[in-house]
């Protein structure tokens, strides 16, 4: 853990209380309770189909939950479009498949939301974009189109694009699983740096090295439930439930 890192105990950024979600008959999330404090870094792991993506996608309402409360930075998520848009402005998200806009240059990808959501003047928005592109070390690609970049570069642009909105929280949904091994590190480096700067982060990832060095808490999900959560050292060395042990032995021993 870095020295500068500070968790503000009294400020909750995300609060999920008794969240339930169904896809038709299928019960994807069962009574999920999760509190994330400002500055905290959470890693969520678990087997495929356990509801990790669904959980974090509920936080910015890409998925709608049917029961329970989700409160993000003091705003309760409901069907009010204004609330949803307020929350989305404060919550950045990075996807497994980058989802950059292929018809816009890297710079335009980054400046789009500041211009249209924050109503920032274009020049200023482009300055912001360049600032974050420099931070993810890709400023020399600013005028290229996403299709002209490698996977790792695209993912770094996607991170910069989210940061341009100056979010309070960043959600990562398996940001490195679509990448070739040699590109994983460049993306993880950016994420570690972000964590060091005190960003509140919730990451779904199977990068256990990242979890060990960066996370304040690791959460293990299975079949739509949070089975176990603990600080990384305990989580990896002394897992409590059998399912966690089975999962860890699988993921660490291959």
């Amino acid at each position, binding site marked *: 853990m870095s020295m500068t890192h500070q968790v503000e105990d009294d400020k909750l950024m995300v609060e999920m209380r008794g969240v339930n979600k169904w896809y038709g008959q299928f019960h994807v999330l069962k009574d999920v309770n999760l509190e994330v404090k400002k500055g905290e870094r959470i890693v969520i792991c678990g087997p495929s189909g356990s509801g990790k993506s669904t959980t974090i996608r509920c936080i910015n309402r*890409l998925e709608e939950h049917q029961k329970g409360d989700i409160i993000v930075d003091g705003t309760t998520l409901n069907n009010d479009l204004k609330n949803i*848009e307020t929350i*989305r402005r404060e919550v950045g*998200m990075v996807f497994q498949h980058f989802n950059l806009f*292929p018809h816009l240059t890297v710079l335009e990808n980054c400046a789009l*939301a500041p211009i249209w959501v924050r*109503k920032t*003047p274009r020049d200023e928005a482009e300055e912001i974009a360049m600032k974050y592109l420099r931070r993810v070390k890709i400023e020399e690609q600013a005028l290229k189109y996403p299709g002209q970049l490698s996977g790792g570069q695209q993912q770094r642009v996607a991170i910069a694009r989210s940061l341009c909105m100056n979010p309070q929280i960043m959600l990562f949904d398996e940001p490195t699983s679509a990448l070739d091994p040699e590109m994983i590190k460049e993306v993880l480096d950016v994420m570690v740096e972000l964590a060091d700067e005190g960003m509140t982060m919730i990451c779904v990832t199977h990068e256990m090295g990242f979890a060990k060095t960066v996370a304040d808490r690791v959460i293990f999900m299975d079949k739509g439930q949070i089975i176990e959560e603990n600080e990384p050292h305990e989580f990896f060395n002394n897992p409590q439930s059998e399912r966690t042990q089975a999962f860890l032995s699988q993921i660490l021993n291959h």
Partner: protein
Amino acid sequence: MPSDANKSPSAHTTRFWHDPAKRAILFQSLLVIAVLGFVGMIVQNTLHNLESRGITTGFAFLSQEAGFGIVQSLIDYTESSSYGRTFFVGLLNTLLVSALGVVAATVIGFVMGIARLSNNWLIAKVASAYVEIFRNIPLLIQIFFWYFAVLRALPSPRQSLEPLDNIFINVRGLYMPEPIYGDGFGWVVVAFLLAVVAVIGIARWSKKRQDETGQRFPLFWTAAGLLIGLPLVVYWIMGSPMTWDNPVLKGFNFRGGMTIIPELAALWLALSIYTAAFIAEIVRSGIEAISSGQTEAASALGLSKSKVLRLVVVPQAVRVIIPPLTSQYLNLIKNSSLATAIGYPDLVSVFAGTTLNQTGQAIEVIFMTMLVYLTLSLLVSAFMNWFNTRMALVER
């Protein structure tokens, strides 16, 4: 290898066959010779036939008097006009119904295509029913349906429907008042043109201001106000320099005003409704081709639903939609030649029909007609290609 070296003299001819480039040249030369021979045969045969029947060739017939009437003409035309003029009358009528059809088909098609994607069950179902019904019935049948079953079933002029004041619908067509422009109406036109210029200026200014300050300007309403308001004010100042020539019933029919003949209405309806069904499918698949990841990423940034559509989905979908949309436009233009079936005086019906029959100049007439459709199609394609390259996607 030694065995290869031994074979090399005798392998020479086989080698020729195995070289794709040489083989291609051989096949292409054979093809060209065959085509030239075929064309030459046809030309010779035709000339021989024409000669033996004593038919003159050439375009002199175009200046002879036509001697037949045409029910709808956008330019002055009487029975004493020339055959050349029938060409232009037909051409303009073809252009008229094609232009009207392209506009209507585009509007209906986009509305139906987007409606098919609606979350509202009823709207989506109505739109898919529309598509399935109208694209699966032959166009000719649809033309007959509108012409004979719907428009022919309208009341006689004396029992005309009058949905709005001075607008009459009956079996002979749709009759509307025609504007008569008086002195000073030119100023109204000038005012409108000024408004257009002003709107372009304001649009530039507001984009620049948005770039600089981020502030949005209510461009749509300003533009609407200027384009409508300014000409209205000038119209009022000039003392309303426009009157209406209303259609009035005289004897068995209406006189005065403007008329849309039922042949045009039926053809227009059938062409637009039929083509719109295909356009709806193109629009739907174009929008669906944009992955949900794009919408999710844009929404996650806080963009509202309408901005997600406008800034992310539509610009990408348009590029997928334009090429197949072009072929639908070309189909519509060519399908307009089905006009003959109900007697709408388009190019084929007038020129390749009546004119050809009366003059017997089959080769010249068909040649001119084909040339018109070819030119039209190439122009439309060229325009759409230009439009598409302007939006071209830069990708690896």
